[in-house]
């Protein structure tokens, strides 16, 4: 049976991951089990390779409704936390997991506070009373280690100016510049879930990698988790694209003594040293406002909130008028002090 549940050895209730203590805890009797020191039930099971298409809850026997990418969810009938084990083994086994450190209540509080801080968000939105749902989700990411060998040939110039007599002289020194650079990047994250908005996920970074744990299924208990939709080779071009601007900046910084450089020849050889499949914690908030659903995401470790809130035209106008008005009065005040008269 590929469905895994975590039953409390004391009272038989379902156990879930507790973000505060980082342990598997029983909500009924309060028992807490260390995840790191106990064997993962996943390793004790052997699954057949072909994926099951129907899962039954081991508590109540109901069919678990899950999308094909779901790896952890809760039974919609009895609410037990279930992990779909066959979707987390073999090639689908994550190397690490970054457990949640922010609980659902904390996430709600943090989100409400964030809503209140929006200076351009409409007043009705700021009260944050229409949160439709908040879901703790482990989003699949690939963490790439990328080694780059770079060779650049460029024409560099150093410009200096000086004044002699009635003339301003501009002296330009021309150089032939060569750089050979080894530039390595580690754990560059790329979102591997099809349904997550890449732009949103990019803004959630950075994730505190020092909190990464070796993957064990109990971390997923009580949350939604997904498996990757794209493998490491399919997303490598995205990873390269992500670091390309960093590489450009590094190359330019290695030639910082020049006023201007034009590249004659630039060779960047990027190799994937390794790619690790990890699950990163994200609180996803669905919010109804003006009949539109807005989606926000919160980093499950740092609490950083991203997502585009609605913008109030009234507040934009007010801010614009206030900032412009104050600037205008200040400028006029300066001109008045200079002797220009106020009008």
């Amino acid at each position, binding site marked *: 049976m590929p469905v895994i549940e975590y039953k409390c050895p004391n009272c038989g209730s379902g156990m879930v991951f507790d973000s505060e203590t980082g342990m598997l805890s029983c909500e009924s009797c309060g028992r807490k089990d260390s995840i790191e020191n106990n064997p993962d039930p996943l390793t004790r099971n052997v699954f057949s390779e072909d994926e099951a298409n129907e899962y039954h809850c081991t508590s109540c026997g109901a069919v678990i409704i899950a999308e094909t990418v779901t790896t952890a969810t809760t039974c919609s009938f009895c609410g037990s936390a279930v992990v779909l084990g066959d979707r987390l083994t073999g090639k689908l086994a994550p190397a690490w997991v970054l457990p949640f450190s922010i609980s659902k209540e904390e996430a709600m509080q943090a989100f409400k506070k964030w809503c209140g801080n*929006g*200076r*351009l*968000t409409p007043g009705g939105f700021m009260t944050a009373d229409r949160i439709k749902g908040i879901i703790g989700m482990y989003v699949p990411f690939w963490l790439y280690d990328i080694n780059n060998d770079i060779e650049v040939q460029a024409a560099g110039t150093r410009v200096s100016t000086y004044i002699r007599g*009635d*003339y*301003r*002289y*501009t*002296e*330009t*020194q*021309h*150089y*032939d*510049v*060569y*750089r*050979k*650079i*080894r*530039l*390595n*990047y*580690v*754990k*560059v994250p790329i979102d591997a879930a099809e349904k997550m908005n890449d732009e949103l996920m990019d*803004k959630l*970074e*950075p994730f505190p990698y020092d909190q990464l744990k070796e993957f064990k299924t109990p971390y997923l208990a009580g949350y939604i988790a997904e498996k990757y939709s794209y493998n490491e080779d399919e997303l490598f071009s995205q990873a390269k694209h992500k*670091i390309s601007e*960093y590489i450009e900046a*590094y190359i330019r910084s*290695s030639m910082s003594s020049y006023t201007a450089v034009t590249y004659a020849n630039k060779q960047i050889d990027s190799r994937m040293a390794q790619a690790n499949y990890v699950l990163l914690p994200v609180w996803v908030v669905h919010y109804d406002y003006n009949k539109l659903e807005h989606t926000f995401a919160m980093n499950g470790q740092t609490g*950083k909130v*991203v*997502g*585009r*809130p609605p*913008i109030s035209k009234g507040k*934009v*106008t007010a*801010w*614009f*008028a206030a*900032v*412009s*008005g*104050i*600037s*205008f009065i200040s*400028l*006029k005040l*300066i*001109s008045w002090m*200079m*002797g*220009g*008269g106020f*009008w």
Partner: protein
Amino acid sequence: MWTVLFFLAVLWAFPIQAAWGETAPAGQQAKQLIYDDAGLLSPAEYDELNRMANQYGAQRETDIIIVTSNNTANKDVMKMTEDFYDEHAPGYDKPHGNAVILMVDMKHREVYLAGFYKGETYLDDSRLNKIRTRMSPKLTSGSYKEAFQTYIQTAYRYMGFRPGVNPDNLLFTTWFPLLISVGIGGIVVGMMAYRSGGRVTVNRQTYEDSGSSEVLEAGDRYLHTTTTKQKIEKSKSGGSGGGGGGRTGGGHSHSGSRGSF
């Protein structure tokens, strides 16, 4: 947003209109401030300019005077101006008082501008030069009425600024600070809207493995040097003619600017 802008514009523009309305010489006898001996103006133009000179001059407590002459006596334009002041004894506050005079010599096609007392303090040589530079092209093309209007308005405007400051400073206009503030407002609100969705908080150092990354080889070969030179432009004093005040035969000190047209 546009209503706010419009409101601001009206707010800033209105007091000027109001100030004008109050001090318009209602029933008060208009002084003769224009002496068109060369006959450059039609009667209607003359009336309009004379009214304008009275109105603007009252604001600055200075007589804004225009004299045109065919110069049959063949005198120097500066001497003509000084003699005019001594003989006619103009002045807003008293005879031989605050005045600014524009003398147009049609024979030699020369102009001279002179400021007396308050006119001398507020319209120094450099300001008179600026006024002359503004109006001279219009005199050259024969648009006398427009040239005289420019003279009256500019003299009035410059006298509103403390002596010594550059009256053409862009800050002293209304449109320039307004443009700048609208720009600032737009940028600030734009940034706020842009940042409301959360910002990317990783930089190029975040994922860089600095321990193993380095420049392995570097070559910097000097090739040659090119030098260009550019003449430094010295600011020239305005066009033909220049500044220079003096003292009239009657002992009245004045500022001045002369030039041909």
